[in-house]
């Protein structure tokens, strides 16, 4: 294999995939990237066996071939070369050589045939959707995913396709985030639910940026997102996501409407003196006025009052302030709507009007 390219051209695909290169060297080959040069195109693949990223770019291929190289080192070398440098990569026997100007590096290799790539997907549904739409779905829900929970099916994001709606749901058992977008589809789509693992969600979020469209393919074991020059594939979590619909309160509850910015700022200030471990704050709601209080083991106290639109019964309720702040940060619009039951029932935070994103938060006992 023999190829040459500008430093910047080479860096782009390497940086795009480095996130999934294993740091803990459980399998030596996972610290490597698969490098394939064919028909004027260089493609670089990295995997942690859960998420696979393939990035490609046009380079000058003098001799076709494929090999795996230590990913982190390859990136570090290219990054450390001067801007605009021309880089030559050639492989002879089991050694790879990088040359640029007066620099020369010899890297160890492992055969390309040993690199684990994700087998062909059995695609059940394919949809075209804007990057912005997916990015917003993930951004509005990802923070509610569980982390290393034994309920492994919560350590990921539920993606649901239903009648031209793509919906994302995440929950850690204490709070739940739901967001949905419409997509165009000629054929009527069948309902479909998959769980994308946490790692995949975070990695995908990193890749999405422009407003170009992407192709989203959902298979029985994998999900794939194809961007211009990057292909993202993630395994799915094989498990049953809880029936989220049952924990979203329906029906006539008491509604509070507040200025989102004012509410959020007041809550952030109150949070400073909440218990570092439990993060509890107490909310007292009566006609037109919300009072929030927090105190910590050092007996320090914070109290804030915010004028709100509210005409329901007086309520006292406690929450983990982080959960509420996460939701207030993700909701759009100047106004926010909080629907409450009693002090033992969850609240729903959403924008006012027809909400496409909803946040359900369970209270804390005061």
């Amino acid at each position: 294999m023999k190829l040459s390219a500008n430093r910047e051209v080479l860096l782009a695909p390497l940086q795009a995939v480095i996130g999934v290169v294993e740091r803990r060297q459980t399998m030596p080959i996972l610290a490597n990237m698969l490098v394939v040069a064919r028909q004027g195109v260089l493609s670089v693949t990295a995997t942690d066996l859960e998420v696979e990223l393939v990035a490609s770019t046009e380079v000058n291929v003098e001799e076709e071939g494929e090999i795996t190289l230590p990913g982190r080192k390859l990136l570090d070398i290219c990054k450390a070369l001067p801007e605009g440098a021309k880089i030559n990569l050639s492989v002879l026997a089991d050694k790879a050589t990088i040359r640029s100007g007066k620099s020369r590096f010899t890297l160890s290799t492992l055969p390309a045939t040993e690199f684990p790539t994700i087998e062909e997907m059995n695609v059940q549904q394919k949809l075209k959707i804007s990057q912005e739409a997916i990015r917003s779905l993930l951004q509005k829900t990802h923070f509610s995913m569980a982390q290393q929970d034994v309920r492994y099916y919560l350590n990921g994001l539920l993606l649901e396709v239903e009648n031209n709606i793509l919906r994302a749901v995440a929950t850690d058992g204490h709070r739940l985030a739901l967001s949905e977008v419409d997509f165009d589809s000629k054929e009527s789509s069948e309902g479909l639910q998959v769980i994308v693992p946490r790692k995949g969600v975070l990695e995908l979020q990193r890749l999405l940026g422009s407003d170009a469209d992407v192709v989203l393919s959902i298979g029985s074991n994998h999900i794939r997102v194809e961007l211009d020059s990057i292909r993202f594939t993630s395994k799915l979590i094989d498990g049953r996501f809880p029936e989220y619909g049952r924990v979203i309160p329906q029906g006539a509850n008491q509604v509070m409407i507040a200025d989102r910015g004012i509410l959020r700022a007041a809550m952030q200030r109150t949070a400073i003196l909440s218990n570092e471990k439990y993060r509890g704050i107490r909310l007292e709601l009566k006609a037109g006025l919300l009072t929030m209080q927090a105190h910590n083991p050092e007996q320090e106290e914070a109290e804030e009052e915010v004028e709100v639109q509210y005409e329901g019964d007086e309520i006292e309720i406690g929450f983990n302030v982080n959960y509420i702040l996460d939701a207030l940060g993700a909701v759009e619009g100047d106004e926010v709507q909080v629907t409450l039951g009693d002090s033992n029932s969850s609240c729903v935070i959403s924008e006012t009007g027809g909400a496409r994103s909803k946040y359900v938060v369970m209270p804390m006992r005061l």
Partner: protein
Amino acid sequence: MNASRSGVPGRIIFHVDMDAFYASVEQLDSPEWRGLPVLVGGTGPRGVVAAASYEARGFGVRSAMPMSEALRRCPRAICARPRMDRYREVSREVFAIFRSLTPLVQGLSLDEAFLDVSDQVRTRRQARELGKFIKQQIHKATGLTASVGIGPNKLVAKIASDLEKPDGLVLVGKMEVQEVLDPLPVRVINGIGPRTGEVLESRGIHLIRDLRNCPVELLTPVFGRFTRRMLDKASGIDDRPVEPGGKSKSISAEETFDQDLLELPEMLEQLSLISIRTARRLAAKELQATTVSVKIRDREFRTVTRQHSFSPATQSVDILEQTARHLLEQWRVEYPYSAVRLLGVGVSGLEPARQMDLFASEVETSSSQVQELIKQVRQRYGSKALRKGSEPDGKRQA
């Protein structure tokens, strides 16, 4: 009401620790053993030393050591089986003395307690007098000796009581904390066990002084989010109040089976039922746990416990049950042929359940109702009447 007591100036905390408690009680009750090495513990092949008299400690015997090892080091030692009822009786007398002095008594075990005497004494001299008085009272009532540590908080008091054991009395004033703690090995700090100790020592941190002076960045990989807390401890800072009252430290449920269980699937099923019982008790007390333990006793009466901790604390039946099942599965890998006569599931690391769970009610009703139903069907029609669809028939009947 305790505002002035949580972390604020002027606290005087006692840590009272009976010297070699079980062994001393044995020597008290059998005068002919006095002055001789006495070991209390199981004498069977798997016995462990529960307590060693100071005469035995001279031979390098420590509690929690296998009895066989202890007897190798000290072959002349007298072995006594533990008599918990008797120890409890003595313990009650000792605690009665504590409670006659202050209501703020936090028992740690039968032979150890923290006392907050901030309201009873004001000066160092008074504190020392009260320490002597407690020791005298204990000796008068029981004939046993205790070591007393006095400090501005629980951390320092506990370390102090260990400094001049047995029959010690050590007072560490606020201004002396640093000076006293600094030269001590890091392992005297509660929370630094042998493993963390080794990690620290491999980084050149041997003494509390080293730990106190260590930059935060070097400690974060070792202690994670507890780094600040550990640095506080190294500086002798501890705001925890003395918490009297009988708070539960663990909650558990267990069951001895009429017939030993032979196959993993039936063990797991039973374990699930027991987990649900434990989880219900936990929920009834409005507590949540950070540790799940599984107790397994086999046909040969070997008892194994396995535990797993997680964060944050939880009340979720689902998490408790799955953790317990996982622990049992791990045990099965090691003991693939054992028949099980008893299973137990316990939870500890308890704290008030403040955060409510979204799925708590759902899981609670669905899984416990189903399990209850399964139990009833099996009681009426036999254990094979109903089985999970996922269980291949052949495997079960084999």
